[in-house]
């Protein structure tokens, strides 16, 4: 490993001399997070809702009034049926519907859970989950005030009427959304895998293309020194991306990390190793930088977006895909990242995922190292 620092330093110089990759590495997380951040913010201010009031009672009208008073929800009329709501979704004239079925008031008076159905336009998956949580919250809050009024009118203590209200949210078109804000932890994973794999995809094939690989091959430097030296700068860069992404999530999304950040960073490094290994692997296999970068993006971004649970919960997938998802380091990192950032849990709760991710990372690294040849 004596020659490793020289290789790492040389690779760092390449990075510094080619501002494009640096800009990509540090700019992309910022851009992605800002895009998501602003998209969500923008949509919530414009959450237009329609009401289907089939109960037509004083209580149902009161609830509608209370929901209309929520500043972020924009009332855009009444509809007769759920089908009509769906049509309004399709025409993009509303993205939320509140349905009060007959018997709402009676249930309330009889202190049974009073059903309120909330429909969310899930076509825009990235914002629907936010909208869903938001709408449910708004309706629940309005319902709470309604119950308070009822209690006062009926002259009974509030306690007796508690939990007499039930919101049943349903997401149309895209029913698999979870109601929790899980975008930021997921984005951290997506950004890491995308950047690490695409950046390292060049490290070997670039030398081959430029002809400098012959210099390395003819020198006494060992394969191990080359691999470690080449990956080290990217590992450092990826670490700064984790810090950047978590920090931005905090500032832009207000997603305050609940758990141990050092643990998150350490596990991110293990995760990054798997992405670096993939990049290195394709760099060894491909003949041109173009092919290498395309292969590594295909192999990382696509499965991470679709299979890892970044957007769609793994548990709702067909069994075959669930098994496949378990083979992706990203799937485990999504769980880990969400657990640490959102739930604030420690190793004790997530160790199976940590173990699986570590094993997968090591296996990938082994495959890449085996593909690496210090010959022409």
């Amino acid at each position: 490993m004596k020659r490793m620092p020289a290789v790492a330093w040389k690779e760092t110089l390449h990075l510094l001399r080619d501002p494009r990759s640096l800009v990509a590495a540090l700019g992309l997380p910022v851009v992605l997070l800002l895009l998501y951040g602003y998209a969500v913010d923008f949509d919530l201010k414009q959450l237009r809702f329609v009401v289907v009031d089939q109960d037509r009672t004083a209580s149902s009208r009161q609830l509608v009034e209370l929901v209309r008073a929520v500043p972020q929800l924009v009332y855009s009329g009444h509809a007769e049926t759920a089908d009509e709501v769906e049509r309004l979704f399709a025409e993009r004239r509303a993205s939320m519907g509140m349905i009060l079925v007959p018997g709402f008031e009676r249930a309330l008076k009889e202190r049974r859970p009073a059903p309120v159905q909330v429909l969310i336009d899930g076509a825009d998956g990235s914002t629907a989950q936010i909208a869903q949580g938001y709408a449910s919250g708004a309706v629940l809050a309005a319902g709470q005030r309604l119950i308070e009024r009822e209690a006062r009118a009926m002259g009974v203590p509030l306690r007796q009427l508690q939990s007499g209200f039930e919101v049943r949210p349903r997401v149309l078109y895209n029913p698999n959304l979870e109601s929790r804000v899980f975008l930021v932890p997921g984005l951290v994973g997506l950004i890491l895998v995308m950047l690490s794999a695409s950046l390292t995809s060049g490290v070997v094939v670039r030398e081959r293309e430029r002809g400098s690989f012959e210099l390395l091959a003819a020198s006494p430097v060992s394969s191990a020194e080359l691999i470690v030296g080449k990956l080290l700068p990217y590992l450092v860069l990826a670490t700064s991306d984790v810090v950047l992404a978590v920090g931005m999530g905090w500032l832009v999304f207000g997603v305050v990390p609940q758990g141990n950040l050092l643990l998150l960073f350490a596990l991110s490094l293990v995760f990054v190793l798997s992405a670096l290994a993939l990049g290195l692997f394709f760099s060894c296999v491909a003949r041109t930088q173009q092919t290498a970068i395309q292969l590594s993006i295909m192999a990382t971004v696509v499965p991470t977006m679709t299979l890892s649970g970044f957007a769609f919960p793994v548990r709702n997938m067909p069994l075959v895909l669930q098994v496949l998802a378990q083979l992706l380091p990203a799937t485990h990192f999504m769980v880990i990242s969400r657990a640490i950032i959102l739930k604030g849990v420690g190793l004790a709760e997530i160790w199976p995922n940590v173990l699986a991710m570590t094993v997968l990372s090591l296996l990938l690294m082994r495959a890449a190292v085996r593909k690496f040849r210090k010959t022409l």
Partner: protein
Amino acid sequence: MSAAVSIAGLRKRFGSHLAVDAVDLEVRRGEIYGLLGPDGAGKTTLLRMLAGILTPDGGAALVAGRDVVADPEGVKQRIGYLSQRFSLYGDLTINENLEFVASLYQTPRAEALRLREELLEMCGLAPFARRQAGRLSGGMKQKLALCCALIHRPEVLLLDEPTTGVDPVSRRDFHRILARLPDQGVTILLSSPYMDEASRCHRLALLAHGRVLASGTTAELAGGVSGVMLEVLTPAARAASQALASLPGHLSNTPFGDSLHVRLSDGGDAVARLTAHLQAAGVALREVRTIEPALEDAFVALLQAEQPA
């Protein structure tokens, strides 16, 4: 004293193509040895095997006392290798390239610094030490590559067409630098497609189709040409060349600038025979005279003997 490079029966095959076919060669210490041959003769393959970056299919080679098959890493530490393609980093400066290569070879830092100054001075690159290699001219790039190949004080220097694509002035410069190295104990084995470059080597091997056709000094090689060499000055070189095919004893003819080099088998007055034949064919002649065969004539003769048309 043992040879710097000794090769016995070295072979390399790519698919059905025999790139290097049972090559035997010996390069003495402190010698500048040239591998001369056209593209595809197997020069690059041979040098890569000697550099330890390509495994031979058969035969043996010792470079700087190390076996290229058994101990390629030992060979690598003791040689400097300059590939045909520019293989340094265009986005790194001259100094950075040299530092990187020096640390690949674990040259002690103080010595690397001293050597760097010395080499840059020798090659006239010192004023450009902080310039990125990609912004150097072709000749300067080759000098930088040479410096990189020398930064760990190798015993043997393997240069693969070091001056191909370099302008004539830079090429002369480059050879002036090379000429000083044997005194410092460096043995040089270089390949070239250029005949004129051969004259700068102490000894040569003529390579074609993966085989060594002949080896020796320029004089030895040229002297080994059988028959008589004639130079024919004529305004109608093409017609002369065609007419010569029917001359008894005609072995070969090759255009050389505006003249024709003709090789005839020994016997009789060659000049008279040839003049009579061409005049009978109606070819205008300016002058016909016998000449000493040059290296190129030797090459043509050898190639012809190699595969009789």
